[in-house]
């Protein structure tokens, strides 16, 4: 009695990633069609493996080293423009933002809050974001792209943070327009570094929810 074909499983089998390699091996001994496909896919993998790399032009690493060194800027805080103009302006801006931020928090508390995030009124009440989770956001957020829908029950990676989630969180904290602009720049790390502690808290909790749901 013949067993069902294993054509769909051959790709993982030749990669050594099959869940039941013995069953497939047994089937291949008795099924010419699957055995032929197995041979074709193995040959195909061999051909792709044999693709040759282009020659690396001499001086590649030196050019990178030179660029890296040229890119290394004078520390920002030592540049005259920063010390004379930016710092005083930043202090003024920070004062304005403090006032606006306080007003915002008060309004959020008075009106129905959109998020159930406790807002610290003093350092003692502040909840520290989970450092591990935050590290994860910072680490992975730089390169993350939205996940596709899982298309297999064997998907085993834990649920993870996506750019969509970050953008949603950013939109909630800095407005959609700002979030879109930053997304275009794809410099999420820089964004995260500019967020206020309360915003980081929100991000952290959103990520935790996402994680838990996953």
């Amino acid at each position, binding site marked *: 009695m013949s067993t069902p074909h294993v054509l769909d499983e051959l790709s*993982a089998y030749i990669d050594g990633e099959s869940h039941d390699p013995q069953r497939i091996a047994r089937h291949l001994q008795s099924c010419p069609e699957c055995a032929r496909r197995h041979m074709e896919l193995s040959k*195909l*993998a061999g*051909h*792709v493996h044999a693709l*040759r790399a*282009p020659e690396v032009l001499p001086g590649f690493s030196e050019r*990178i080293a030179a660029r890296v060194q040229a890119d290394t800027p004078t520390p920002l805080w030592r540049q005259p423009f920063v010390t004379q103009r930016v710092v005083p302006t930043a202090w003024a801006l920070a004062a304005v933002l403090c006032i606006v931020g306080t007003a915002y928090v008060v309004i959020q508390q008075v009106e129905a809050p959109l998020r159930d995030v406790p807002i610290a009124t003093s350092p003692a009440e502040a909840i520290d974001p989970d450092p591990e989770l935050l590290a994860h956001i910072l680490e992975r957020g730089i390169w993350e792209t939205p996940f596709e829908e899982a298309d297999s*029950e064997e998907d085993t990676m834990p649920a993870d943070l996506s750019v969509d989630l970050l953008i949603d969180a950013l939109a909630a904290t800095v407005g959609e327009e700002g979030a879109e602009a930053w997304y275009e720049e794809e410099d999420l*790390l820089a964004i995260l570094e500019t967020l206020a502690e309360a915003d980081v808290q929100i991000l952290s909790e959103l990520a935790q929810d996402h994680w838990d749901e996953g």
Partner: protein
Amino acid sequence: MSEIEDWALIARAQGGDMDAFQVLIVRYQRPVIHFCYRMLRSEQDAEDVAQEVFIRVYRYLKRLTPQAKFSTVLFGIARNLCLNFVRDMNRRGRGMGQPLDAQPALESNVRLPSQEAHLKEIEACIQAAMDSLSDDHRMVLFLRDVEGLDYEEIARVMKCRKGTVKSRLARAREQLRQTLIQNGDDLL
């Protein structure tokens, strides 16, 4: 290549040792350029993007922690930069680079002209078939069959799940197989 050694070099580079960073570049320049080359179809573009990959690594050096294979970090960056590059080219209306088979070859030992011609012919067939694949399918195939990454590592690079890697690979190979058969290439 020893992972421990890679991360030891990174630790030294994090301390400002540029020589250690250059050792890493030399170690990985070939696979990174190759990856970019297969994605972008142009040797010049591949080298430019590969340079950018290493510059990004340097920029984020202090944030790297030895939690994964270093090559997955590199290919993850390379993937993003290649996709950005392709998107930018499409926006500007510039197609991708010249066909790969027009590129000067390549590495390796001295071969007889007939052998070399045969290899080039096979390579051109495979590349033509690979060009019909989506970017994701081409990447997954490269990372598995050329670089030998396992599914877990590819999932890290592609920022997707292991099951997605498995299904993408199966689809990519099947499409490649059918394209080769349709093209009448006698390679299988």
